[in-house]
Structures are given as structure tokens and as C-alpha cells.
């Protein structure tokens, strides 16, 4: 990371989030994010690692405005989108999220899953949306399954379809929430290969900006510009993948990595 790094696309500042009953701050609530700072520069890839329950998913959901924060800032291009007076739908339309469980719409064919948001949210005509959708399915290697229903696809195919659905709107930031955790081991590769190619070749000549929560350390090593280690809702260590995963400074990070082996 150099000093001439551009103004980050996404910045989290002191993000705090708790779940449970009672108002924020009451002792009955569980604190999930405890003052998280994080930057994602346009065109870069930041990978968040940490054990289950460390707050990775919540972090991504906070960015996508699927969760209300207790405190702190979520700055997208310098605008604090965590403020409730900001149009959340407009913000979400600029982002895209891929979920662990794919969350394809089971009643729609693959192509219709991909074209739904362009048609309904962005007002693209059906013909144009389907052309763009087919191009995107081509990109993820699923053009021949465009007319199939999600339950006719393998898990890896479903997840690639979900990635095509997320990318078709040309999101400024792609949020990936443990996208390989629900897949059979032999299907993980095809999804990771696709994500890797989104970094190296990009979409329409532009490398996709990503914020990734994952358990795949090999993948993190390969694609990450920065690795962030989250533990109990706090960032304990951050740096290049070589440093954080290869030569961690914090005992907690070392312990986490030891347990993965």
C-alpha cells in the first residue's frame, strides 16, 4: 500500500452494531461490531478473515444497508450512507451482494434472475436486459443454462448465476459473503476461479472492486490487496496478505491461522 493511494470508495469509521432486545447500549444486547475502521479503494480487493461469529457477515450487511448501525460512519464516495435520511435503495443499487446460500429466486429462470433488477430497478427494456444478462451469463460460463430454473443447477452453477446477477448492474462494489461456504469441496474451485478472473480480467475491462468475507485463505492470498483480521467485532490486524497470513504480528491472528491447519 503506497501513499498515493486514491480516496477510498468505501470507508467505515468506528462502526458499531449490536443485536438483541432493548435500545442500543443496553446490557441485554450482543455487541457484534465494536468500532470497526476499514477502507476499500476503487479497483481494489479487501478480504476480511476471522472465525465464525467474528462479525464478518454483519460487516458486509452493514455496508449494504441491510442492518442499521448503532454508531459510526459508512462513507461511500465520502457520503455517510448510514444516515437514515439517505435513500437506501439508491445506495444498494450502486452495490451488489452475493450470499452464502446463493438466494436465487426459485420461481424465476436463471436469465430472469439476472434481468430482474435491470428491468425493475434500472428501467432497462426486456430485450436489452436479456442481451446484457446473456453476456454476463456468458462471462460466468452459464450461457447454456439461461433457461433452467435454479434447482436444476449444481451449487457451483447457482453461485455463479448469483454472481452474474450481482454483476449485471455494474456495481461499484461487490460484497461477497462466504460465497463458497455452502458448496461441496469439488465445486469451490469453479467459483473461486471466476472471482479470480473478475480481479485479473475484470468485467468490461474494469477490475471489480470487492469486499470479501471468506474462510478460503489460499484465495485471500491470491486476490487480496489487503487482508483484515476481525475478532470479536474488532479489527486486530490488517496488511498485505503476505504479512497478515504469512507473518502475523498479533497472537490472536497466529492462533486463528494455527487452528485452520
Amino acid at each position, binding site marked *: 500500500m503506497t501513499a498515493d493511494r486514491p480516496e477510498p470508495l468505501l470507508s467505515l469509521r468506528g462502526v458499531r452494531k449490536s443485536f438483541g432486545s432493548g435500545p442500543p*447500549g443496553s446490557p441485554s444486547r450482543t455487541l457484534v461490531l465494536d468500532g470497526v475502521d476499514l477502507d476499500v479503494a476503487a479497483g481494489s480487493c479487501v478480504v476480511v478473515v476471522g472465525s465464525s461469529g467474528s462479525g464478518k457477515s454483519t460487516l458486509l450487511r452493514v455496508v449494504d444497508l*441491510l442492518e442499521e448501525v448503532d*454508531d459510526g*460512519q459508512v462513507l461511500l464516495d465520502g457520503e455517510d450512507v448510514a*444516515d*437514515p*435520511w439517505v435513500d*437506501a435503495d439508491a445506495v444498494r443499487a450502486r452495490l451488489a451482494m452475493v450470499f452464502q446460500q446463493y438466494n436465487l429466486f426459485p420461481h424465476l429462470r436463471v436469465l430472469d434472475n439476472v434481468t430482474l433488477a435491470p428491468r425493475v430497478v434500472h428501467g432497462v427494456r426486456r430485450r436489452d436486459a436479456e442481451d446484457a444478462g446473456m453476456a454476463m451469463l456468458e462471462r460466468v460460463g452459464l450461457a447454456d443454462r439461461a433457461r433452467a430454473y435454479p434447482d436444476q443447477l449444481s451449487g457451483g452453477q447457482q453461485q455463479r448465476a448469483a454472481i452474474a446477477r450481482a454483476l449485471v448492474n455494474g456495481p461499484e462494489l461487490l460484497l461477497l459473503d462466504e460465497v463458497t461456504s455452502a458448496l461441496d469441496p469439488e465445486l469451490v474451485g469453479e467459483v473461486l476461479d471466476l472471482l479470480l478472473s473478475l480481479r485479473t480480467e475484470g468485467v468490461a475491462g474494469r477490475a471489480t472492486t470487492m469486499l470479501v468475507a471468506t474462510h478460503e485463505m489460499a484465495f485471500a492470498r491470491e486476490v487480496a490487496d489487503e487482508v483484515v483480521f476481525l475478532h470479536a467485532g474488532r479489527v486486530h490486524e490488517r496488511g498485505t496478505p503476505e504479512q497478515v497470513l504469512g507473518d502475523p504480528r498479533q497472537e490472536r491472528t497466529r492462533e486463528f491461522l494455527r487452528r485452520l491447519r
Partner: protein
Amino acid sequence: MTGDGTWVPSERARARSTFRRAQRRRATLVAGVATAVVLAAVVYVVTTAPGWERAREAFFSPERAWEVLPDVAAGLWLNLRVWVVASVVGLVVGMLLAVVRTSRIAALFPLRMLALVYVDVFRGVPLLLVLLLVGFGLPALRLPWLPVSAAFLGGLSIVVCYTAYLAEIFRAGIESVHPSQVAAARSLGLSRGQAVRRVVLPQAVRNVAAPVASMLVSLQKDSGLISILGAVDAIRAAQIATTGDYNFTPYVVAGVLFLLVSIPLTRLVDAWSARQGWRRELHGVAGAGVVR
């Protein structure tokens, strides 16, 4: 990690809370104004109708209402008794029928066919028709052991029809339980019957608690149909009261009494199922937290 009592909200967090509170206040205000406008419109249309004066006298006479209240209320007591008995019998027999229909035991095949025919017939025939056929057909057989009171025959007809409806709802509930649940139960060594009783049925009942409850509310109101056989329930009592003077207020009284039972009943069922967590569990479901 719990117990974060040391946190003090930032200026920013307080501004956001203030904004959200203001928005909630605004939503309440909008709801209030919208309600007032609709109510005013309804009152205006009704009270300015050309026939309003006469209609008010014929349908909403307070004196007449007070006069007939004891008779109609006494009739409602019959409705409530029919409702309770029909509910209990319908729930038990309906559940049995559903279990029989979904069972795969070979020896139960004849019973399965019988249940199928029964449900097909009584779900497809209008309740009114069943009432007429049972009410006038069964007494014609002159069976010495069969009670022939209108209340009994009317109640029987309702039981027969609602058992069929409830059986179908329970069957849908049983089929909504994922087969892997049975696999898990059987792998633990539970027998087929134990798996059904301990694992499938509890989940099935939860899944259909809402439609079953709405069926029971609907049964309470349909218990008024026994009046066509001459049983003196709330509706029949009201009808008797209108014959002298063509004042229809007793019908309105009967309607209000039915509502006084069914509305609290519906709310009670809602509250109960919410407390049991019998609605779809949203906690921890991705997307459930979408707020704006």
C-alpha cells in the same frame, strides 16, 4: 460478548435517533389523518343517503336492540356450544384423517380410500346443502336411537364439513415438513409412528396454526347456519323478533354479538401464535433486518 454498558452514543448516533423518532411520529400522524379522512367519508356517504332516516330506524333502533338483546344473546349461547363441540370433534377427527391419508401403511389402504372420498365429497358440497340433506334426510330414516333435534343435526352437518376442511389443512401441514426430518428421526431409532407423532405432527401443527385458527373462527360464524333447520340460535332468535314489525335491528344485534366473539378470538389466536414463536422465525434470516 454482552454487556456493553460503557458505550456513549456519538453526536451522530443521537442525530440519527432523533431523525428516526421524528419519522415514526410522522408515520403515526399520517396513519391518524388517513383514518379520520376515510371514516369521515364513510359517515358522510351513509348519513346523506336519501334513505338514511328510514334505514336508521329499521336497522339501528337502540330501543329495539335493547329489547331483543336477551333473546338473541340466549340464542348465541347455542351457537357457542355448537362451535366448541364442532371445533373439538373437527380438530381430532380432522387430524386423524390427515394422518391416515398421509400414512404409507399397506393395511390402512381401505381407510385411506375412505378418507379420500370423505374429504372429496364434504369439501366439495356446499355446507348449506349438507345441512338441508342431513337436517331433513336423517330424521326421515326414523332411527330410534338418533336424536333429531335441529341443534344436533345442524351441529352434525357442520362437524362433517369442517372435519373435511381441517383434514385438508392438516394434510398440507404434514406434507410441508421436510422428508429429511423423518430421515433424522428414523436414524435416531424412532419407529414410523414415533417419528410422525414426535417430529412430524408438532411441526405440521405449527406450520398450519394460522389457517386452522382462521377455520375455527369461520366455524364459529357458520354455526349460525343451523338456524335454517329451526334451531333457535342467535340468528333464528333475531329472525323471530323481526317478524312482528319488520324492524331489522335484531339482525344487527346478532351481527354485533358474533363480532364480539370472533374479533377477540382472532386477536387471541394471533397473540398466542406470536408468543409461541409459531410464525415464521425471522431471527437470523438474511435480509430480515432490512429497515429502509
